Structures are given as structure tokens and as C-alpha cells.
């Protein structure tokens, strides 16, 4: 067991597909939480999200979706999940397309016509210790993240929560590099604004 915990994804995948049940335990443990988080970006219902994650593992185990090593296993797995979650959300008639939400640029009115700050950012009443340790701030950022439009939330989550790079995110979500950057920028800008609203006073 201990040895298998540090094995690469690809090694575990090969063992699992060869019928090794024990190898599936660390593989699933490694990604279960991330998959659930990603699924929740598409389907809000927790039980439905768990179904989607379970179907994703089943699809992998049954070879319905085949991992062929063209990307990392993680990227491949996230993409399969995203596609399944998306079709599930479409069925539930609550899917919002990634590209366009008619969302105006955030901080649009923060600048004067010359491009200078109309409302300069004010200092946050927060110590470095609080930023590192406060659970109240985590609640605040969690709430702000949940309030983002789903496409922005998904991109911010994959980049900043799951620590994936831009190429991986484009690959998983099937969006362009430009689109990825815009969604990330808008999402982060809104998160900063949400924190500012609470920390400036």
C-alpha cells in the first residue's frame, strides 16, 4: 500500500486496467475531491455531482473512454469529467456555455476617461498573519468564488485551486487560450472586488 501511494498515475492506470483492484484505491483517492469540485461547477446538486464522478470512473474502468497517453492522466480524467458533467447539466437544462455570458468587464467604471483610477483601491485592514491563518477569510473567498458565473468559477478553480496551467485548462474545457485568459481575469478581478468590499472598512 505504502509503495503504491507514490507510484505515478500512469503506472497505477496500467495496473488498474490489468485488473488490479488495489491499485485503483490510491488512484481514486488522488483525484476524487478534485473531480467532485469540478463537477459541482456544472451541476449544483451534490448528489448529482457524485453520480457524474462515479460515472466518470466507471467509464474509465470499463474502457468506454480510453486513456491513450496523449496528455497526462490527470488532464484526460478532468476532461472526461467535464464533458460528462456538461452533458448532464444540459439535460438538467442549466448549462451555461463557456464562451459568452454577456458579462461586462469588471472594474469597468473604476477608471476615468483618461485611464486613471476614478476610485483608487483602498488599503485592506488585514495583517499578513490573518491572510495566512484566518478561517473567516477562507469563508469569504469561498463565498465569493461560489458567486462567480460558472465559466469564470470553473477556470479560476482549475487554475488557482487545482493549480493547473493554462494549456491544461484549455484542454480540459475545450476553450481557446484567449477565452481562458479572459475568464480567469474576470473571475479574479471579481474575487478581489468581493474581498475589498469586506476588508476596506
Amino acid at each position, binding site marked *: 500500500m505504502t509503495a503504491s501511494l507514490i507510484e505515478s498515475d500512469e503506472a497505477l492506470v496500467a495496473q*488498474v*486496467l*490489468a*485488473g488490479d*483492484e488495489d491499485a*485503483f*484505491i490510491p488512484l*481514486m*483517492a488522488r483525484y*476524487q*475531491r478534485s473531480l*467532485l*469540485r469540478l463537477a*459541482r461547477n456544472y451541476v449544483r446538486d451534490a448528489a448529482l455531482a457524485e453520480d457524474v464522478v*462515479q460515472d466518470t*470512473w*466507471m467509464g474509465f*474502468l*470499463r474502457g468506454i473512454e480510453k486513456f491513450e497517453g496523449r496528455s497526462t492522466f490527470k488532464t484526460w480524467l478532468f476532461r472526461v469529467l467535464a464533458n460528462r458533467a456538461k452533458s448532464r447539466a444540459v439535460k438538467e437544462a442549466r448549462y451555461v456555455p463557456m464562451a459568452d455570458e454577456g458579462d461586462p468587464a469588471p*472594474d469597468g467604471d*473604476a*477608471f476615468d476617461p*483618461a*485611464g*486613471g*483610477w476614478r476610485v*483608487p*483601491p483602498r*488599503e*485592506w485592514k*488585514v495583517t499578513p498573519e490573518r*491572510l*495566512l491563518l484566518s478561517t473567516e*477569510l*477562507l469563508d469569504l*473567498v*469561498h463565498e465569493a*468564488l461560489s458567486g462567480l458565473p460558472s465559466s469564470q468559477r470553473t477556470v*479560476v*478553480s482549475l487554475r*488557482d*485551486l*487545482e*493549480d493547473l496551467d*493554462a494549456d491544461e485548462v484549455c484542454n480540459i474545457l475545450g476553450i481557446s487560450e484567449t477565452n481562458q*485568459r479572459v475568464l*480567469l*481575469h474576470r473571475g*479574479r*478581478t471579481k*474575487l*478581489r472586488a468581493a*474581498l*475589498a468590499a469586506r476588508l476596506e472598512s
Partner: protein
Amino acid sequence: MLRCRDVARLASDYINGDLSWRQRLAIRAHLLMCRHCSRYLLQMRQAVALVRRLGRSGRTSRRPADAEEDARSIFRAARTAPDGSRRQDR
């Protein structure tokens, strides 16, 4: 010369290190003279740092009570065909 609005628009890419060295240089020159933008960028970094902390905190999703048992059930279910017969190993 970059204006504050331009700096704000490039902030996310700047944090990621996704800009050309020329753009980075322009931003750094602007930041030397503009405390508003310096503060803005600091706050943007702090927001990103908090999201990263959130990811490590475990509060965005709970760990299942019995992960091993879950894994074994899924594995076994996957290897059983819908008619109940065992799948053959490849």
C-alpha cells in the same frame, strides 16, 4: 506609457508571468510611480493566494468517510456486466 486601466487589465497575466518581458518592464516602470496600481496588484495576489489556501483547506469538498470501500465497490461494479456476469480480463 501604460495607464492605470491597462495595468489592471494585465494584472492577471502579470501575476501568472504570462507577459512578454517588454510588457513586464512597462508594468514595473508604472508601479514604481503609482501606489494605487501597486496596491491593486498586491490585493490581486492576495486574492489568488487565498483561493490557493482554500484549495488546500479541504473545505471545498469533504473527503469521503470510507474512500477505500467506495473505490472497491466502483471497481467491482465496473467489472460486472449489466446482466450480472463477470467481465473477462483482457
